[in-house]
């Protein structure tokens, strides 16, 4: 197990270096357009000489005037949390450069917006589990009854229709027919977003609709998977033994079957956790949650802000890779039959 963790971590670092190299290469494919983007604000004089000077300054700021190997070397050490360049090793946060618009370190801007995204992702997973676990159990235990068919239809419908289409219809319906009621208070996009520690109620009001809509979409996946897992577990010998001991249905289902059916669900939830934190761009935009997705969108919308997009991509890639590792380790710990060789 320890060997496995060490080997996976080394592989992960390799994957991350590859990913960072891809991002590095992405900037160099067409560095001129990025330089133009950076220099866009300084084009006021209009003469071509001034434009050239602006571009020259921008190129220096972005570090594009050094040789490609020097650039790569600096880029990688900037990203790494441990910096060995200055003679003595020093610990620092990954340096992602300054954003074009705010002229602030990108890492700080991301850190300021990460909590909203994480909160929304957590709430969605919570909603997904609250809805999906009972439904998955019921529809497995009552397989092929009308309850099962109804619940499965519900899940297929949520899987088939993209969540941002559902969100648009939600906004229309709430705005037209529930204006001024409590549903509108809790379910429509808000103008000014409040931090959770500042004003929990207002924060949850803003979060409620995207959390529920996104959570149901995630829950549909969890529910289908849990149902098939439960059906498999319910046919195992030890469940039959539990029945023949005369245990109550509730005990057999929750204590014997559910416990084992939930283990693979954990992997799924781990993967989904990464996906919802990174993948809420659209819901964040519709419901005006100032998270990472909203940040990326606004960075791209008017004037392209390359360092911001690059920084968000790198940070999320790092997070996803390590969430996957954590899930694999947890999985092996919960289910001792799994051997990592």
């Amino acid at each position, binding site marked *: 197990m320890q060997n496995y963790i060490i080997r996976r971590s080394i592989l992960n670092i390799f994957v991350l270096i590859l990913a960072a190299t891809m991002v590095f290469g992405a900037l160099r494919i067409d560095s001129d*357009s*990025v330089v133009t983007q950076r220099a866009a604000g300084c084009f006021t004089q209009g003469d071509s000489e001034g434009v050239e000077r602006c571009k020259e300054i921008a190129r220096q700021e972005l570090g594009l005037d050094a040789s490609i190997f020097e650039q790569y070397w600096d880029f990688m050490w900037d990203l790494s949390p441990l910096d060995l360049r200055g003679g003595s090793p020093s610990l620092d946060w990954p340096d992602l450069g300054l954003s074009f618009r705010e002229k602030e370190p990108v890492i700080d801007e991301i850190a300021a917006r990460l909590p909203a995204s994480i909160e929304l992702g957590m709430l969605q997973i919570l909603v997904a589990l609250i809805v999906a676990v009972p439904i998955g159990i019921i529809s497995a235990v009552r397989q092929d009854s009308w309850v099962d068919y109804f619940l499965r239809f519900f899940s297929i419908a949520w899987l088939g229709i993209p969540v941002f289409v559902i969100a*648009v219809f939600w906004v229309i319906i709430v705005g037209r027919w529930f204006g001024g009621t409590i549903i509108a208070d809790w379910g429509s996009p808000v103008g000014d977003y409040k931090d959770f520690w500042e004003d929990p109620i207002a924060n949850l009001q803003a979060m409620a609709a995207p959390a529920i809509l996104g959570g149901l979409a995630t829950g549909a996946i969890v529910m289908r998977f849990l149902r098939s897992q439960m059906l498999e577990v319910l046919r195992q010998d030890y469940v039959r033994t539990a029945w023949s001991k005369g245990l109550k249905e509730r005990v057999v289902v929750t204590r014997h079957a559910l416990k084992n059916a939930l283990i693979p669900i954990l992997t799924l939830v781990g993967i989904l956790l990464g996906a919802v934190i990174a993948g809420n761009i*659209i819901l964040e935009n519709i419901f005006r949650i100032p998270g990472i997705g909203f940040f990326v969108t606004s960075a791209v919308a008017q004037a392209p802000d390359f360092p911001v997009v690059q920084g968000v*991509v790198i940070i999320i890639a790092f997070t996803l890779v390590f969430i996957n590792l954590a899930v694999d380790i947890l999985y092996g710990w919960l289910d001792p039959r799994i051997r990592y060789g």
Partner: protein
Amino acid sequence: MAVEGQATPTEGEAATEFALPKQRTMRQSIWKFIRGKPLGAFGVFLVLFMVAMTLGTPQLTDWDVPNLPDRPLGFQLGDPWMSRYGLEDKFYTVEDRLAQQESPSADHWLGTDKNGRDTWSRIVFGARRSLFVALWALVFATVVGTTIGVISGYFRGSLDTGSQRFMDALQAFPPLIAIILIVTINPLSGDQPNLIVIAVALGIVGVPTVQRITRSVVLSTREQPYVDAARVIGATDARTMRYYILPNIFASTIIVFSTGLGVAILAEAALSFIVPDKVPQGASWGLMLSEAQSFLVEKPWMGIASAGAIALAVLGFNLAGDALRDVLDPRLRI
């Protein structure tokens, strides 16, 4: 039936006993498909309807038109199928330009937008653009992903490990943000947004999925006796891959292609919806939805129309892809 004790079966009976199963006519097979897989048939219907919408939509120059070549996939697509929105001038007369944000009527089936353009016509144009981007994205993803998948699955070893880590790195990027990154750099066309760039961006993001599925199928295919036989008769590696492995993984490639189309259509719409300034302007479902977003509550029709079009297209391709998988290769899991 030749039952014992029945000494001499008549000629007619013997003939029926050895007759081949009756060949189904085209109509009977279609009917059987509809009966057996009603949801799949519904999906195929939606896909065919969308394709029909794209057939021969004319190139208009006056109003907002999709920024597309005249022959979208390199060949002539036939005569206009929906003549109502062919060369008719219904939505570019002055009265119609003044008819802004109307509700649906007999003239404008889905109402009009803020410039008085007919929403249904723009949906029809948008279908062409969606299909264009999705098809080229999937062509890119399938060609690149299948090539890498076949080579890495066939040779295994360090080549395989290397390409798998490469795919891991590619998959570490959240898909939509990676697409936005590529579109922001926009290497091909300078400042002008370009549909080809979007298609390639969607394709790049799709490569790891295609590669993984292809590789897993190749890993089991290469252990088949006929691959050994090919090696025994002295076929080179390239020849084995081209003539013995590739034809046998073709079913899975088709399935990956068809299921991917729905995802690509959704991703294109999502991209146009969240970064409307970074994609080519024109009739696009995602752009229409993003335009409709600011007055969604007062004038919901454009939002309903474009969101409905996206939902139906994605649903159609998903259902059709599932049915295709059941028919071609039920064991394949995607």
